[in-house]
């Protein structure tokens, strides 16, 4: 008689031990959401969880077209921040972006965006030449130029980093991050674009995002800077 509750406890104990790990495994099938949730009081007296999405923007692409967040809507995007005359890590980032482009180039659910952090030098025609020589083509891969302050703030919003620095090689200090965002513009991962193994992982994570229902997770709202004109 006394044994039954004891067994019950043991079972409960085993179950509670086992459970978190299986839950964690389930969670792992979905990529995490990067950033902080926004908790908003709703009319029913409850709280809605919203997620910050990447900000709106208007920039010019290597084809001379003007590109906004609307051109990326519903697509999975990979973003980086580079400049064409960069003597350090940019060629490695471009080489890794090219791998991704070659892998997903024919998939219209995927878009790559490379922002020039030296937009004064990297005009539309300089970017067109760079893209052609690299083997990149729109609309699968946009090279973007425009207002430098906007591009620097976008770098920040993407969990990357860029600034003018006369002491840095080429005149700019910047990160080699590749940022992965989902169909709703929520950041789901940041990877080292100079490390082929991290980019292997990024490619797998892109497959996971492609398989994910577009409305999965907390609703996204664009926040922060809004430079859309």
């Amino acid at each position, binding site marked *: 008689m006394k044994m039954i509750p004891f067994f019950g406890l043991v079972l409960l104990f085993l179950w509670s031990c086992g459970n978190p790990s299986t839950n964690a495994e389930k969670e792992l099938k979905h990529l995490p959401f990067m950033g902080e949730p926004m908790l908003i009081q709703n009319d029913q007296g409850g709280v809605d969880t919203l997620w910050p999405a990447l900000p709106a923007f208007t920039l010019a692409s290597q084809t001379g077209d003007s590109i906004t967040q609307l051109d990326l809507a519903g697509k999975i995007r990979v973003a980086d921040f580079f400049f064409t*005359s960069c*003597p*350090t*890590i940019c*060629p*490695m980032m*471009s*080489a890794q972006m*090219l791998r991704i482009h070659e892998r997903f180039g024919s998939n219209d659910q995927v878009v790559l965006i490379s922002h020039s952090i030296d937009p004064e030098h990297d005009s539309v025609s300089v970017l067109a030449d*760079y893209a*052609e*020589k*690299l*083997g990149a083509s729109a609309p699968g891969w946009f090279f973007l130029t425009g207002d430098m302050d906007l591009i620097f703030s976008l770098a920040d919003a993407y969990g990357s980093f860029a600034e003018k620095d006369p002491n840095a*090689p080429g005149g700019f200090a910047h990160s080699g991050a590749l940022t992965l965002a989902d169909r709703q513009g929520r950041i789901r991962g940041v990877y080292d674009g*100079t490390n082929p193994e991290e980019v292997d992982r990024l490619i797998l994570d892109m497959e996971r995002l492609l398989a994910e229902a577009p409305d999965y997770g907390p609703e996204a709202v664009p926040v922060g800077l809004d430079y859309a004109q």
Partner: protein
Amino acid sequence: MRSKSNLLLILGAFFILGFGALVLFLPKGEGATVKRGEKLYMEQCMNCHGKDGKGLGKLIPGLHHAELLQKERLICAIRYGKSGPLEVDGQVYNGQMPPNFALDDGEIRDIVNYVYAQFAEAPKSLDLPEVQDQLRNCAQANPRLQW
């Protein structure tokens, strides 16, 4: 008696194997410069020309082309950089390789020897005086480079 001689045999085998491995893998003169060159290549060249020396599209040439590996082109490019149109195998490159004055003559020799060991069809090895000779010629051949 028997087990003792077996033991000796085994010890002897270990000794021979160990010594053999030491001779095989100990960096010889040439191996050492290539080894240092590999490290320098990964720090100074790999970002642009790639770990495998394949370059990047039509932006950066690969290093498998014999013409680019002519010692005067390779050695001068490492110290003084290279820009302007460069045609190889029907492809015209027009990029910019920055000069690198931080590398001393010996380090340039090491990089050159690594590049030859890794990417040249007929690997060869240069010694320091050869490299220094060439470095003097780079500066003479191109007055623009004398600063």
